[in-house]
């Protein structure tokens, strides 16, 4: 694979650049605080003791570049700082919240690909017929709906009216796996937008592939239908969808914040929201860096997988 190495190097450089950008951005935002940062951060409780504590924890008396250097150095050692609100290290917050978030994300990703491909292929096979029109319209519609609205409506119907599922994960938070019923709605909501987007891409790709000359050639040489679809058409349909999958990973990171807020799941999203509410800057900074870096790494991984899947077409001289 001759083109891989330079591409990989470029991509890694880009990823490194993006990580640096995240770190700088996060840091720069705290610099943007008007006036005395410690006072601003103390917010509703401007008692001198608290202000002094904040100033101390965040080393606000030192110049900006020193703080940046110290913080960056700390990042490299895994020290993400100390919370302003509780005094605990930020990494302990991360450890607490990591489990539920990982569970949600993993479940969603596992279900996403089979569902999306299945729907897309189903729609493409029945192009123009009712099934296809239905799938197309529904995916187009649901794709646009914010998770919180969709989630709230699902909760109203399935939890409040029908009582099939618990409305939130309150009480199950510590041991979600033992109570799968509490996971159903959150995962459905998390799946909603990515499934729609991916299914549409798979559908479009399949339709194009099924109408292509190379599939026609296979068809006229007697290749049976199922093999045509899955061995000849689908590999071509997957390429644009695979690229989208990389973006989907980003979506999950955001969707998780909303879903955890809605269903009261004690994951990283909840930690972040609490920190925002309390203006606990070190926690926010630490979480933002973790989220950002995770996004970069996952994108890189997905792009690598896509590169392998999409044979580069030779460029005409």
């Amino acid at each position: 694979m001759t083109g891989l190495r330079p591409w990989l190097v470029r991509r890694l450089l880009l990823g490194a650049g993006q990580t640096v950008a995240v770190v700088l951005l996060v840091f720069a935002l705290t610099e943007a605080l008007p006036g005395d940062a410690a006072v601003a951060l103390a917010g509703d409780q401007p008692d001198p003791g608290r202000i002094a504590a904040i100033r101390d924890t965040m080393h606000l008396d030192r110049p900006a570049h020193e703080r940046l250097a110290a913080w960056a150095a700390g990042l490299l050692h895994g020290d993400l700082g100390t919370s302003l609100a509780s005094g605990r290290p930020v990494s302990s917050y991360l450890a607490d919240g990591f489990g539920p978030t990982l569970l949600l994300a993993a479940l969603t990703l596992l279900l996403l690909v089979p569902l999306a491909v299945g729907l897309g292929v189903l729609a493409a096979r029945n192009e123009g017929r009712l099934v296809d029109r239905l799938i197309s319209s529904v995916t187009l519609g649901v794709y646009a709906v914010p998770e919180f609205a969709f989630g709230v409506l699902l909760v109203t119907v399935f939890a409040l009216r029908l009582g099939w599922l618990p409305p939130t994960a309150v009480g199950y938070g510590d041991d979600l796996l033992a109570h799968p019923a509490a996971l159903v709605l959150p995962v459905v909501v998390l799946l909603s937008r990515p499934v729609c987007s991916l299914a549409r891409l798979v559908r479009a790709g399949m339709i194009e592939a099924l109408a292509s000359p190379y599939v026609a050639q296979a068809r006229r040489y007697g290749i049976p239908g199922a093999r045509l679809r899955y061995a000849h058409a689908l590999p071509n349909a997957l390429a644009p969808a695979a690229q989208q999958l990389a973006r989907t990973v980003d979506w999950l990171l955001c969707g998780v914040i909303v879903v955890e807020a809605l269903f009261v799941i004690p994951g990283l999203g909840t930690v972040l929201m609490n920190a925002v509410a309390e203006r606990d800057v070190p926690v926010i900074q630490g979480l933002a860096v973790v989220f950002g870096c995770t996004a970069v790494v996952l994108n890189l991984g997905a792009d690598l997988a896509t590169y392998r899947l999409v044979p580069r077409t030779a460029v005409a001289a």
Partner: protein
Amino acid sequence: MNPRTVPGPRRFTLALLILTVPLLLALLGPLFAGEPGPRAASFTLGGGHWAGTDFVGRDVWRQVLLGGRPVVLTALAATALAYAVALPLGLIAALTHRRWLEELVMRPFDVLLAVPSLLFLLLVAAVLTPDAGGLALLVALVNIPDAVRAVRAATAEAAARPAVEALRMQGETWWRTAIGYVGRSALRTLAADAGVRLAGVLYLVATAAFLGIGAEPDAADWAVMVDRNRTGMFLQPWAVVLPAVLIMALTMGTNLLFDAALTRPDRGPGQDRRGRRPAADRGDQGTAPDRRDRGPAPDRVPQPGRTPAPPSPTDGPPRAPGRDEKSNPCI
């Protein structure tokens, strides 16, 4: 082999139907809101409030009438702002021959793509507490990288055609080439992208408001209502369901509308996006586009495009030559 499905007028009317109610409520609602009534007990039904009361005892229906405007106006402002910046930048990046200029415009945006949008909003909100105008600015900022990429992709395709070189050989002015030809050719794709972007911006504005960014906790805003009235869902679901349904209809309708409006079969001449050609024409794959088996017809026949129509605009990222596409507003 079936010809490509093109959404018919039915989907357009469906989209209009879904969109009309929330849009009218959003834009005209405040005219009918009237004076705020006396505060009643929270989360009660009935008693003159046909949708009940909210978490501070206000009339839910009145809040609904007032709550659409912030969402819609902020979204429109953010979209317009994003394009105001993206159009010139994208055009420059697409039309320039100087690689360094193109890199200069595009690379910073590649880097900015790393920060997930919602995260960015949360970070800023933690520190600066923006109001609605600030939110519009932030959402526009977040969308600019993707919009520039979309503009560049749409115009780059047109800019790479021999027609542009032919225009240059005629000594045509930059302006006429860029706007008159490239811009006009790219218009359709750009309009589609604008529609998608609007839907995405609506998403982001609503989600941000739900999370408490850009709006006061007691503001009359549909998304805020969904957030704040959640605690009383058991007692009084309407305070949550009404705004949620309206947001859902608004976002759904916008997306369906733009998709239906922009994937109509082309009637005008010389458009790129046409239905696929029938199977018999597969045989004639000469480079001259007019060699087709069309029976005893004169040599001069209207030419359908040879390219199959690309997927609907809302299917995901425009196929830009670069690698990073962010179709989702969250990112």
